[in-house]
């Protein structure tokens, strides 16, 4: 976890606002979203953008929430300050939940508001007159109005329009600029601005999705071979890698299925590449036999599971933390592997090189448990937090580098080199194909130290035991290579909120709200490394806890069961959400209050927004 922020801060942010843009898929929600995100990030504001969408290309209901602040932004927040409904459906769905002081911006000809809650400013726009024929620019008007109300200078918008539309030609940029100016001026003349202005800070921030962060981390780690089968919500990694493959000398392959993906990256990794793939739960299920082979032949690979709501095809565009036990149980038999659940976009980036170093050193698969929330979710990232030049540690590998054709080789029929040598650490130096004198077979069948199969003719219970123990022994020392989780917040707390992976930010924000708005002090123990698991460190932290509340984005309490299996700790109460949408801070706040009152030991929040 990079940059762990404390649970309490005295520096109250100047602004913290959220804009929601909704409509049917195909109505062009992405472009105004991008424009706003770029403008906020260029002013140095942190932001978090989450798109609630559906599995269709046209129609339905899509709702993008962009929240920005000069303080940390770790979730989509609890409410909206501005809503831009692009169709009647969006207006009807969400007007009732708009809070006092918020504004709703819409085309007065196309959309009529219904019962408007008290204190909500309705901002009807004469879009037809403002766009003067350029229908495509309707959303630009809405963006201009939002920016005016936030006190953001028009020049920022002009720059962003140039950035976004320049590939469509100067005429499009100019037309959008003129229309934007009219919208901006119309807002100044007709609507009340917010009582605050979005500040401009000194440092520009980058805007990245988690999928992009994974791709960027892979580039930093030296991935040379990336393969995938398109599957929401992981496809963004494939697209990022494909976009940059040529210029950076990386091979990207779209394969016939996920079985082929995993087997192909194992082939590339066996030959010596750092090789990676990303998928979602269904694709991961197809990969699992081969992941076992990666463990058996001790060929390291990295695979990212971007979880979506399951089982089966499930809800392809909705989030869940429901694959934990699938990853734990991936592949038959016992074999060492890593499972890590990064907590944010920045953390995704930095985890990839770290995981490759570990998998190279320990020669086993590394699995990343991400989810739609952080992988498709967008966040600002401080460029200084991304380490593009990480240490690259390939462990015990033997390459032919430096050997030319007339260079030496140690002969064929080499009986000296033992690919699977039964060393003290269990780690056996790995020669890649092409190295003279190190010929061996890498077999998915059980094998002897030299690679000879001991699964049929030469079965031998002692050797089998030796090889099982050799592979397992690799992990004896691995905990030292991984930071244990730490307790964040006050030691004197009414409860400890325990979670894993993507819920880190929203749990932290809920803890801050509980303290500042409810005078309830709880602390946080968030787990990133699932395997290996710092069971002792976690046990000793939780032994001091007044009440252990386990927060997770699934029905059955997968993490709670895992915690119990590794530590014997049952947990005292649970907050679980499994409706496809991520936690909002108040869901956890309300849950903690109910659980502390002792009315129940399981709190399941209701998602108020119908998205």
């Amino acid at each position, binding site marked *: 976890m990079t940059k762990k922020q404390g649970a309490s801060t005295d520096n109250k942010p100047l602004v913290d606002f959220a804009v929601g843009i909704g409509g049917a898929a195909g109505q062009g929600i992405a472009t105004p979203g991008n424009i706003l995100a770029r403008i906020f990030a260029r002013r140095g504001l942190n932001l978090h953008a989450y798109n609630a969408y559906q599995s269709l290309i046209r129609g339905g209901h899509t709702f993008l929430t962009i929240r920005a602040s000069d303080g940390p932004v770790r979730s989509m927040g609890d409410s909206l300050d501005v809503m831009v409904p692009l169709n009647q459906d969006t207006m009807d769905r969400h007007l009732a939940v708009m809070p006092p002081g918020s504004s709703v911006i819409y085309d007065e000809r196309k959309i009529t508001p219904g019962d408007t809650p008290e204190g909500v400013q309705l901002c009807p726009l004469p879009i037809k007159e403002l766009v003067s024929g350029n229908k495509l620019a309707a959303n630009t008007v809405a963006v201009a109005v939002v920016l005016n109300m936030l006190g953001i200078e028009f020049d920022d918008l002009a720059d962003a329009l140039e950035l976004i539309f320049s590939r469509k030609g100067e005429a499009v940029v100019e037309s959008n600029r003129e229309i934007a100016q009219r919208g901006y001026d119309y807002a100044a003349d007709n609507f009340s601005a917010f009582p605050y202005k979005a500040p401009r800070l000194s440092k520009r921030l980058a805007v990245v999705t988690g999928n992009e962060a994974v791709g960027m981390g892979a580039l930093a780690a030296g991935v040379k071979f990336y393969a995938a089968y398109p599957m929401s919500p992981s496809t963004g990694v494939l697209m990022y890698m494909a976009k940059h493959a040529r210029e950076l000398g990386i*091979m990207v392959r779209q*394969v016939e299925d996920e079985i082929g993906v995993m087997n192909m990256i194992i082939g590339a990794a066996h030959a*010596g590449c750092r090789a990676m793939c990303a998928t979602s739960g269904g694709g991961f299920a197809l990969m699992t036999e081969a992941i076992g082979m990666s463990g058996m032949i001790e060929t390291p690979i990295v695979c990212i599971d971007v979880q979506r709501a399951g089982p089966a095809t499930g809800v392809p565009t909705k989030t869940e933390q429901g694959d934990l036990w699938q990853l734990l149980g991936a592949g038959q038999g016992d074999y060492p592997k890593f499972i890590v659940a990064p907590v944010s976009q920045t953390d995704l980036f930095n985890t990839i090189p770290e995981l490759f170093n570990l998998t190279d050193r320990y020669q086993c698969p590394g699995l990343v448990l991400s989810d739609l929330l952080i992988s498709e979710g967008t966040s600002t990232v401080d460029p200084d937090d991304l380490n593009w030049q*990480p240490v690259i540690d390939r462990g015990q590998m033997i390459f032919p580098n430096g050997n030319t054709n007339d260079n030496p080789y140690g002969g064929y029929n080499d009986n000296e080199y033992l690919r699977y040598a039964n060393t003290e650490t269990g780690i056996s130096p790995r020669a890649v194909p092409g190295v003279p004198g190190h010929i061996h077979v890498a077999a998915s069948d059980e094998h002897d130290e030299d690679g000879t199969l001991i699964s049929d003719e030469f079965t031998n219970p002692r050797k089998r*035991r030796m090889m099982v123990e050799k592979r397992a022994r690799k992990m004896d020392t691995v905990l030292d290579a991984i930071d244990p989780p730490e307790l964040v917040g006050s030691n004197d707390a009414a409860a400890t909120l325990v979670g894993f992976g993507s819920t880190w930010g929203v749990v932290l924000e809920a803890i801050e709200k509980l303290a500042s708005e409810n005078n309830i002090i709880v602390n946080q123990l968030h787990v990133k490394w699932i395997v290996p698991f710092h069971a002792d460190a976690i046990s000793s932290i939780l032994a001091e806890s007044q009440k252990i509340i386990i927060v997770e984005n699934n029905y059955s309490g997968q993490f709670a069961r895992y915690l119990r299996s590794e530590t014997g700790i049952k947990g005292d109460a649970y907050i679980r959400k499994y409706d496809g949408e991520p936690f909002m801070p108040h869901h956890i706040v309300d849950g903690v209050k109910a659980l502390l009152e002792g009315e129940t030991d399981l709190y399941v929040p209701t998602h108020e927004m119908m998205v």
Partner: protein
Amino acid sequence: MTTTTTAADIVEKSIISNSIPLSTVEVTRDTYKGKIDPDWCPGCGDFSVLTAMQKVLSELGRQPHEVITISGIGCSSNLPGFINTYGMHTLHGRSLAVATGVKMANHELTVLVTGGDGDGFGIGGNHFLHTMRRNVDLTYIVMDNQIYGLTTGQTSPTSALGMETKSTPEGNLENPINPIPLAMVGGATFVARAYSGQQTHLVDILKQAINHKGFSLVDVFSPCVTYNKDNTYQWFKSRVKKLEDSDHDRTDFHSALDKGYMWGDEIPIGVFWQREDLPTLNDLEPVLDEGGPLAYRTLGISKKQSDRLMAEMM
């Protein structure tokens, strides 16, 4: 379990063993003899295929470390253990996917893929199709015995209609796959059939297949003497006819397709189809244009490159 070998010892040793001059090594058929002897049933057709591969490699003068033999699972897939090249014994049906990864990561390796009809045309059928259309530069040698041998005699995708096996005791109801037309239509650029009972011919075909740039399929009739009592040496002997003895034109697609469909009293063996005008996948990949094998390149990207990537995000 205690041992005294450390990983550092092995790396040290390998540096020393790398210092014996390569030029002192002469490549013969015995060079390719594996560490262990085959565990196939006496009389199995696969022996002949193994010997033919060893002959071809020595005749071509390939160094063992320049070759990798990759298999799936099944009797014939045990072959990598019996030949002295780099080897991978992968999962059932997955050899071609793994081999594609190996070839792309190190396109300087000679990649041979071995397996059976169940492995390649049954469980591995999808990879078979897509590896062909990609024209991955490898040689796929299928030891086709029309039966599942290692699981003791069940029907296979190439088992004849009506064949009685342990899973079809009343006779096979399903039409078999004919790998020759399938491969031609699937995009393979070299499609041949051989018979393990005619080794000289088999050697000749394998040599052409390995020399071919692109995906080459050699479907070898390799009788299972234990579980297939229908398609025996005796059965094949009178039926197989060499295409080389006819006026077959291997560049005539439609004629080759017709020959590929021939089945009955006369079954052609030889090279049905070859085209040399299509680039291989590694020829097409600009990433492999220069810099040698992907697997041996320096990792990571430069500051200049990462600055450019970050600029896109700002």
